[in-house]
């Protein structure tokens, strides 16, 4: 009994002592910073910017090539196309050239549009507000463009193989479509996640 009393007396004043301010947490840190100089996001931003500029140059060059290919006297040049194994050869006609350059321009233009959207999404991330309806729209556009571009490549190769240059190019099988379909699905799922994130953000804004 007597031994217990001092213990309780010692405990009771401790309850009145105000809590100490929280000490900074010392623990295992993530290997990379997410934002700021030298972070993963800054590296991603550089990669996006470089790829965007490169794609702009490539698309511009292809557009110029597309315009000039309208006026090139192809019949005089006598150019032939063949497949990689050097099998059947076919003269390069104007429709074939226009189709090829046009398809390439559309391909790179599509990826340019995807990168433009990604850069805009990234801009919202750097200002700390990525969950907004605009990003949902951008991600859906990315998914749509990705589907059109990859589907377009598949169809274009089929058209070239069947009509424009039979024997020169082999049509792609359905197996080639699996990876693009998977990528498009991933992007659309991400868009839905962002839509829910934007809804939650709006709801938390309107919670008083």
């Amino acid at each position, binding site marked *: 009994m007597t031994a217990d009393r001092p213990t309780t007396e010692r405990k009771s004043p401790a309850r009145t002592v105000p809590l100490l301010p929280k000490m900074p947490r010392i623990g295992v840190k993530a290997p990379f910073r997410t934002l700021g100089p030298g972070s993963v996001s800054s590296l991603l931003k550089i990669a996006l910017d470089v790829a965007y500029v490169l794609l702009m140059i490539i698309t511009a060059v292809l557009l110029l090539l597309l315009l000039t290919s309208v006026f090139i006297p192809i019949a005089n040049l006598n150019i032939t196309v063949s497949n990689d194994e050097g099998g059947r050869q076919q003269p390069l006609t104007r429709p074939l050239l226009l189709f090829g350059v046009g398809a390439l321009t559309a391909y790179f233009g599509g990826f340019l549009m995807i990168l433009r959207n990604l850069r805009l999404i990234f801009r919202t991330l750097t200002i700390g507000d990525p969950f907004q*309806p605009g990003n*949902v729209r951008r991600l859906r556009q990315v998914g749509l463009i990705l589907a059109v571009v990859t589907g377009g490549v598949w169809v274009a190769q089929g058209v070239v193989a069947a009509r424009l240059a039979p024997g020169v190019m082999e049509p792609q099988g359905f197996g080639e479509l699996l990876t693009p379909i998977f990528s498009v699905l991933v992007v659309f799922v991400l868009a839905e996640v962002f*839509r829910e994130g*934007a*809804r939650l953000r*709006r*709801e938390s804004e*309107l*919670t*008083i």
Partner: protein
Amino acid sequence: MAIKVQLDRLLVERRMSLTELADRVGVTVANLSILKTGKARAVRFTTLYALCRELDCQPGDLLSYEPGPPEPDLDDEEA
């Protein structure tokens, strides 16, 4: 909106301005305006407690239910 916030009436009865109430409750005037105009989606218990404390009322005095069409979904506002 089916839930009305009777802040206007209570402020008139208490002869208190929105700015004064915002100061006392510790909420910005902008947020209190959102609550007053019925645009708020939710009210925290801590805010409700502070409002009742400063206006000397019960939660039932602040909130009332009125039958009406359901409020639009946040998704519809985005679209």
